[in-house]
């Protein structure tokens, strides 16, 4: 059976990088992989998603309602936005970080309270983590996406793949040490 993974976040959070690392690791493990990155306006703080499907033979990575085995939300309200894509019984991994969108900043809409509680009440499998805090504790806020990579890899049971090699390939040398620590912290969360 193919597995599908929907990653959702905010432009600038580094979800495309995480998706690239995941896809390449999966390919080297011998899976067929398709990854769709629609990044039209991602740099301007809009909502961004990538879709990854892997298995024996994959034709299309598109994920619609109720089709994702795992939803990885890099920001709390992005979990709300894409929850309908998660299949019943699927796993939600959610970063507790809050990034206010412009309509909230401008006072036109409100950022909701009680998001994590609502998710935990309604969704069967929820893994929540404050990835930004974990990364900040390591001294590099920017590594929160790599913390999320660690959690995702663990949740999928794919720890055996050489992820650290991939991290080294895709990130600048001077950040390797911190990012690898961030990745391991992510693995340890579960």
């Amino acid at each position, binding site marked *: 059976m193919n597995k599908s993974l929907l990653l959702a976040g905010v432009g600038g959070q580094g979800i495309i990088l995480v998706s690239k690392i995941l896809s390449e690791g999966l390919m080297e493990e011998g899976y067929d992989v398709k990854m769709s990155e629609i990044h039209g306006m991602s740099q*301007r703080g809009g909502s961004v998603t990538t879709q990854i499907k892997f298995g024996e033979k994959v034709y299309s990575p598109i994920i619609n309602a109720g089709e994702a085995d795992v939803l990885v939300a890099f920001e709390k309200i992005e979990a709300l936005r894409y929850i309908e894509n998660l299949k019943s019984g699927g796993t939600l991994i959610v970063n507790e970080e809050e990034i206010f969108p412009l309509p909230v900043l401008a006072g036109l809409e409100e950022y909701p309270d009680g998001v994590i509680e*609502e998710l935990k009440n309604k969704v069967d499998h929820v893994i929540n983590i404050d990835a930004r805090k974990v990364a900040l504790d390591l001294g590099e806020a920017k590594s929160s996406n790599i913390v999320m990579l660690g959690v995702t890899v663990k949740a999928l049971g794919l720890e055996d793949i050489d992820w650290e090699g991939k991290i080294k390939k895709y990130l600048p040398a001077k950040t390797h040490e911190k990012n690898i620590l961030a990745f391991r912290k992510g693995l340890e969360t579960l």
Partner: protein
Amino acid sequence: MKKLMTGNEAIARGAYEAGVLVACAYPGTPSTEILENVSAYDEIYSEWSTNEKVALEVAFGASVAGARAMASMKHVGLNVAADPFFTIAYEGVNGGLVVITADEPGMHSSQNEQDNRLYAPHAKVALIEPSDSQECKDYLKRAFEISEQFDTAVLFRVTTRVCHTKGIVELGEREEVGIKEYIKNPKKYIMVPANAKEKHIEMERDRLPKLHEFSNTTDLNRIELNDSKIGVVTSGACYMNAKEALGDKVSYLKIGFSYPLPDEKFKEFAEKVEKIYVIEENEPYMENFIKALGIDCIGKEEFPLCGEITPQIIKKVVLGEKTPSTYKLDILPPNRPPALCAGCPHRGIFYEMSKYKNKINVTSDIGCYSLGASAPLSVGDTVVCMGAGFSAGIGFDRVNKMAQRGKKVFGVLGDSTFFHSGMTGLVDAVYNKSDLVMVILDNRITAMTGHQENPGTGKNIMGEEAPMIDIVSIVKACGVKEENIRVINPYIMSQNKEAIKSALEAKGPFVIVTKQPCALIKEVQKKRANLYSEVDNEKCTKCKACLRIGCPAISMVDGRVLIDKVQCNGCTVCVQTCPYKAIKVHQERGGENE
């Protein structure tokens, strides 16, 4: 060797392997990364052309001179390049010539979702549609062979899902095909009426029947027989979506060569299956053709014409499957639209324009500044296509005068758009004595599409230094009077204010050029990394004036206004906007302010 590649990367690889020597493009989602990847191959001359028409003409010239050449563009780009496209169809090629159109069913980042397959029967140019990254590479090589074999340009149509999906690709080697001899041939390459009449007849009489026969025999159009109850005719990304949804439960006629369409193959398929579904995004291009052959099929009566056709839609229509169960929550998320970045140089002048809502109309354009049309700035009456920021303004201004509305019109566009098709509007405004105010937002980059160089940036796609074309000199050379030109720093609100005031009072065409590089350019980020603004909460009266400039770095949390140091680049637009002088800009070690 195997590699994970997007369709765009695979097209670039295909160009390399096919021995392409010249590649041209104008950026546009989802096509941009094709040329960006091609430019990494030293064997290929690549250029960001001024616009798509120029790109296609450069590629055409290269083809006639004997090299394999290609031009890539987003779907609306082919409208700009349509003029050469239709006549190149008559002339044919010397070295192979492929035009790549990247269409956007679903409009992930476009202003329309036109189906460019329809250009092929209109211009009578061969059409090829790959379905995934491997086919992008392989079919592009075939496209060049077909182009040379049949002496025709080839339209190569991909869509967002093909361009931006990574899949596994088996790489090949480059084949040097070299440069063909050029022999002067006016009857073929000089399309004056006498020659064009012959060429048109020749195309209809000789080339099209050959392509038609090819379409019926090529393996690019292939039947995959499984169960005979249901047959699916499909192409491009829809083939992958159909396979994902239906697997081997149905039979397929996969169309990879889609103009001319293979009538015999359709008939053969119709004899083998009981019921035919035609799965294609947007227009019923194949469906109409199949129905005209007298073959029964189901298409747009069941599948949507607007937007993408996903595996889930296919499962619903063909198998009658219900939407799988999922979770419903009681909390709805606030919207998260894209917004002008913190420190964006476009913000200041847009904020200033927003104060004149009842005094001006703004014909805007496509670029990051189209985001200025969203709340809270809400500046912009129209956005239609590149260049229209000026030209639509000329017409709007005429009618405002006829209706005695007493409103001035501001046309707004960016540097890349100015070179692309804004210059012609500028000339029109001067020549036709318009009172239009033309605002050129020169952020020294093509930002919207991911930061490409353009004729004003001083660099080309290969990273070499290039002549920097000066916008202000062009404006002057077009005849805009000195006193009607303002060149300003849009981070300085008094300059924005003065320029707009003078523009409102001026007679004749008026030009404002804002000069400040995009905040996301690497050197700019480096230079401003240590700059940030801070709110003095003693002085802040919570008047919210700063929130109205729409900077994503400024928020109001628990009744206090906060500025996010990381996002803020110290542009000081908020500092200058605060009526109580409660915001101050700071500098941590080093860095420089303007």
